[in-house]
């Protein structure tokens, strides 16, 4: 057995679970033949906190705060999905002004999430200037969110039956100024990611996922829209203000990394425009309505479009003030398995970019062990793997 391993040029390269670039840890194993990835497997759970179990011993109101903390980036959308579900079960209609405010915050959150992703992805490609600019610009949104709610993350805008914060005329002005600035910047970023020849070498025709492959892989969100699949819950199953004010669907057809950049940047531009529309039409009215402490027995499903794709909540009540079961399918779980297919046939140097391409919600320190034929080990950390990717492309371009 040993001798066959030694003769083979195939090595297993573990990546993760610690990863400085992202939020939640995950572990991948890539089997490589020389430079080319032959197969891959995924192991999650390093950030598993047992939230689905914990909700079964907390009241409906307590759970709102727990579920908002599932994710530090898309916290509002988790709370929104939960609120929509519980309100459906209770048969409560939220005032229209509260619905619009929820939607505005959801879109602001999408902007900060996409800008954050743009920075991380640029960093993985060795384009740190773009990383620093996009994160500087992201502060505009963080400041707006802080002005609105007092918090940069976990804004806690939602309460069961409405929202906690009103949107005042002075907020309106601040949001518009911020959006004007970001729009100008984003137009520039679209230009950069589609025209910078060095950057295109890292993105064009890399990890291509065709329309059919996207359907087979079951991916969701911008990742699937970059492959031309017309799927966006904001349009397919409109909730909140999306029902009355439809948002435009952003589709790219190439399915490569470049398309995943372009689709997210175009979604940013659409979000700016969409928030302006909502600010124009923001109706007067109540911010919240009463909701009972005990929720009627029953089962409901709530689906929303998180920044990373379709977020699915299944909520079951047994008629008490504590839920019987809440099941959450996050978009990353749908997307993460696609990485194990996407990387096959790709260069090892592209692996960090392919991973980033789906905007995964885990943090893992790309750490790889290079095992040579003699069996000695050399462990690479994330920085070294990133550097390897950059140097690999520098060598190839000369």
């Amino acid at each position, binding site marked *: 057995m040993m001798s066959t391993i030694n003769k083979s040029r195939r090595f297993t390269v573990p990546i993760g679970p610690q990863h400085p670039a992202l939020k939640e840890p995950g572990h991948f194993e890539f089997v490589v033949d020389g430079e080319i990835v032959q197969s891959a*497997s*995924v*192991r*999650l*759970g390093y950030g*598993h906190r*047992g939230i*689905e*179990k914990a909700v*079964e011993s907390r009241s409906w109101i307590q759970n709102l705060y727990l579920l908002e903390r599932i994710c530090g980036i898309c916290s509002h959308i988790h709370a929104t999905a939960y609120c929509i579900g519980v309100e*459906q079960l209770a048969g409560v209609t939220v005032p229209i002004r509260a619905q619009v405010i929820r939607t505005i915050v959801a879109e602001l959150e999408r902007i900060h999430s996409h800008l954050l992703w743009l920075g991380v992805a640029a960093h993985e490609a060795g384009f740190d200037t773009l990383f620093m600019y996009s994160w500087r610009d992201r502060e505009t949104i963080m400041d707006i969110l802080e002005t609105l709610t007092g918090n940069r993350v976990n804004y806690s805008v939602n309460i069961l039956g409405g929202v906690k914060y009103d949107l005042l005329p002075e907020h309106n002005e601040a949001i518009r100024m911020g959006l004007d600035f970001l729009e100008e910047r984003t137009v520039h970023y679209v230009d950069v990611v589609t025209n910078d020849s060095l950057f295109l070498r890292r993105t064009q025709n890399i990890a291509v996922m065709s329309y059919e492959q996207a*359907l*087979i*892989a*079951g*991916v969701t969100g911008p990742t699937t829209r970059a492959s031309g699949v017309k799927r966006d819950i904001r349009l*397919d*199953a*409109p909730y909140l203000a999306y029902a009355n004010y439809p948002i435009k669907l952003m589709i790219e057809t190439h399915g490569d990394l470049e398309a995943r950049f372009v689709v997210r940047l175009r979604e940013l531009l659409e979000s700016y425009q969409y928030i302006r529309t909502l600010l124009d039409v923001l109706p007067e009215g109540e911010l919240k309505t009463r909701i009972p402490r005990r929720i009627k027995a*029953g*089962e*409901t*499903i709530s*689906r929303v479009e998180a920044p990373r794709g*379709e977020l*699915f909540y*299944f909520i*079951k009540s047994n008629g008490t003030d504590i839920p*019987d*079961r809440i*099941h959450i*399918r996050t978009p990353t*779980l*749908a997307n*993460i*398995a*696609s990485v194990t297919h996407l990387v096959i046939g790709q260069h090892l140097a592209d692996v960090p970019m392919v991973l980033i391409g789906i905007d995964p919600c885990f943090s893992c320190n790309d750490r790889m062990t290079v095992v040579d034929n003699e069996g000695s080990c050399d462990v690479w950390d994330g920085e070294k793997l990133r550097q390897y990717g950059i140097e690999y492309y520098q060598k190839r371009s000369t």
Partner: protein
Amino acid sequence: MTNDILLKLVQEQLTDYVMEWVIPEPNRLDGSLSSEQLLTAATQLKNVDGFYLVAITGIDDGAENNTLEILYHFCIKVMIVTLRVTLDRNQPTVPSLCTIFPYASPYERETGEMFGITFTSTPDTSRLFLPDDWTEGVYPLRKDAQLEGVNDVHDK
């Protein structure tokens, strides 16, 4: 195709397999079926307008009922069709959907380890979320799971 027509079509196509239909909300259809019928029903559903699998939910009905439920949620646009299989809590086994929906694998791994449900011929049975040193036979999302000693594993 309007929602009503689509709902009717799904009910017609799956009429041989589903024992009972419930319409909990206007955009939802909830059908109970036996585990033997699951694969054919899911295949039929995929052929109706391209339903895709969104999630697999496990529910523990408790030791007194001695059943587990497994819910397969399929969506297209606003429509959600749920196929519900009730399982024996002592020996819960269902066929894997991976031959029809290859991306079902992580969902099956999650439901399997959390509820102790066996998915026959699923390609990957390794743990997805639970730690490597998690006690065998403890299924955390079951209502009567004894988690006291298990948590201490990480404090060693």
